[in-house]
């Protein structure tokens, strides 16, 4: 490895999946394409321990894990190191889990049926901080914002504190287009904005949700008196 350019440093990836065949195949694909697979793990506990030791840039995480659910792994590791990027690679039909993982810090979601190229691209984008959305995830995020908006505001006493996060009209528009299967490029064309702007909008939708989740956790902690030292 040359030290000349940081950009050329291989992305350090860790693969977590309880299915050995899958794990090996994904790890092999990644290393063949120049990624540095620093660790793999087959269950939740293992994943947390090894990720703390191996310090990967990107965690490719299956949510359906023995010993400790993938969502919990995501929470613990992102809490431990907020710079860690998590790409959820999972079979669909676990929607509540996916949403929970995204709220607690995962920035990408890909179906297991995605092609190798899609996976490699998704890992690359996750590494640089771009959100990786499937139409399914966009639908879930839209639904989550709608649920948050319809909930009665819990914090009436502290009025200056922002209540439930809301999407701007433009963000809603972009998310709807993602959910209808349009690529970022197509969305940029249709809305006559730049590709980068589309990405920013998508990123904001996730960012607000994750921030809200953290605020809720802190509020919950304060209510329960857990902040006492």
């Amino acid at each position, binding site marked *: 490895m040359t030290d000349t350019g940081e950009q050329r440093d291989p992305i350090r990836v860790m693969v977590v999946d*309880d*299915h050995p*065949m*899958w794990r090996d*195949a994904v790890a092999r694909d990644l290393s063949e394409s120049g990624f540095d697979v620093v660790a793999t793990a087959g269950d939740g506990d293992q994943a947390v321990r090894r990720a703390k030791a191996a310090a990967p840039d990107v965690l490719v995480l299956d949510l*359906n894990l023995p010993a400790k659910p993938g969502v919990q792994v995501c929470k613990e590791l992102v809490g431990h190191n907020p710079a860690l990027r998590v790409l959820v690679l999972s*079979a*669909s*039909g676990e*929607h*509540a889990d996916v*949403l929970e993982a995204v709220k607690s810090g995962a920035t990408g979601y890909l179906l*297991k*049926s*995605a*092609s*190798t190229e899609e996976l490699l691209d998704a890992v690359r984008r996750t590494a640089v901080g771009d959100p990786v959305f*499937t*139409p*399914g995830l*966009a*639908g*879930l995020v*839209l*639904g*989550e914002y*709608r*649920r948050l908006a*319809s909930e009665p505001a819990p914090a009436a006493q502290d009025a200056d504190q922002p209540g439930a996060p809301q999407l701007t009209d433009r963000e809603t528009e972009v998310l*709807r287009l993602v*959910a*209808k*299967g*349009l690529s970022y490029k*197509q969305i940029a*064309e*249709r809305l006559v904005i730049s590709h980068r702007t589309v990405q920013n909008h998508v990123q904001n939708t996730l960012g607000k949700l994750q921030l809200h989740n953290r605020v809720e956790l802190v509020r919950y902690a304060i209510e329960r008196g857990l902040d006492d030292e």
Partner: protein
Amino acid sequence: MAKRERVMRMSVEQPLWRALTGYRVLTMVYAIGLFVSAYDEVAHPWVAISYFAVLAVWTLATLPRVANAASCTKRFLAADLTIALTGILLTRIAETHERIEAGAPTLPSIWTAGAVLAFAIKGGWRWAAFASTLVAAANLIHRSGVPTRDTVHMVLLVWIASIAIGYVVEVARASERTLARALEIEAATRERERLARDIHDSVLQVLAMVQRRGAVIGGEAAELGRLAGEQEVALRTLVSGGLVPVSRVSEDAAEGAVVRAVDEPDDSGGAVDLRLLLASYAGAKVSLAEPGAPVTLAPAAARELAAAVGAALDNVRKHAGEQARAWILVEDEPGEVIVTVRDDGPGIPEGRLAQAEGEGRLGVALSIRGRLRELGGSAELISVPGQGTEVELKVPKATSASRGKAEQR
């Protein structure tokens, strides 16, 4: 498994049969004891003695017959009742007229009730009524048509008690059937969940894997991969969403059971989750994006909307080709449900829309619009060149904003 079912069937009835066995032996001893204590007053002791000999042998020899329902045959019941009736009628020969008038017991006395009870336990209250009526008739003949108050009481008691016991046995059997059925459904559901877990952990992973590698290898393998992918989606839909329709099917089989409403956990006044109806459309070429929580609509509206989505997808295949991909987006707005179906076909160039309508190419889209209008909703066709065609279906919710509420009509 069959063994377990048998245990279930016998659990309530078995104690009754055991009790009957004991009752028959004890009452036989009692009847003989009565006879011995009054031996000096009996007119023709030999008639009585020979009857009791037959009765004792019969009672002891047929003990296995009253051990359970299966061995208690109709023929045995008939013979048993005949012996009881014969005993009642023989009393007239064995005893003096005075003693009968004075209210002396019949030869078999309360042993008779055992024969009637066997009818009740075996066949329910109708059989019990039949047997006890015969016994009542025999008793009347025995009293020469003028029953004393005691006889009337005895007859009524046997009659009512046997009918009541017969009825209880029927109810117990029905409850047992219901219980067995409920356990069966529960076991089936558990098994299904276990299978779903297993399939999720193994088969689905392998299928997804085959799809993935197949696409990499290309050629014939790519086709195999595509097939595996389709099966993966189908199987996953089956093991995850399939649970609801199955539990609904099981309702009709609660035959003749008294407690029937047990397995019917239908919620929120018959509102239907639209997602479950649309899940069957998802596949390798069709992606379904939904809000992650139930999207409830009145059953009729949900069915119509799902049918409209199906028609839109058919339209996609017809006009954009078999290889076209499609996306379904379900949105649960406060006042309405919006379902969008988009394809990645060539789309309809501007200005061609009106022409296409004239050519009847939009026929399906128009029929979709008709369907939606009947529900008080709307259907809109949007086409952006190079970005496929979208059909946006909107259906207003039953009353207003509140979720999960379906009390119209």
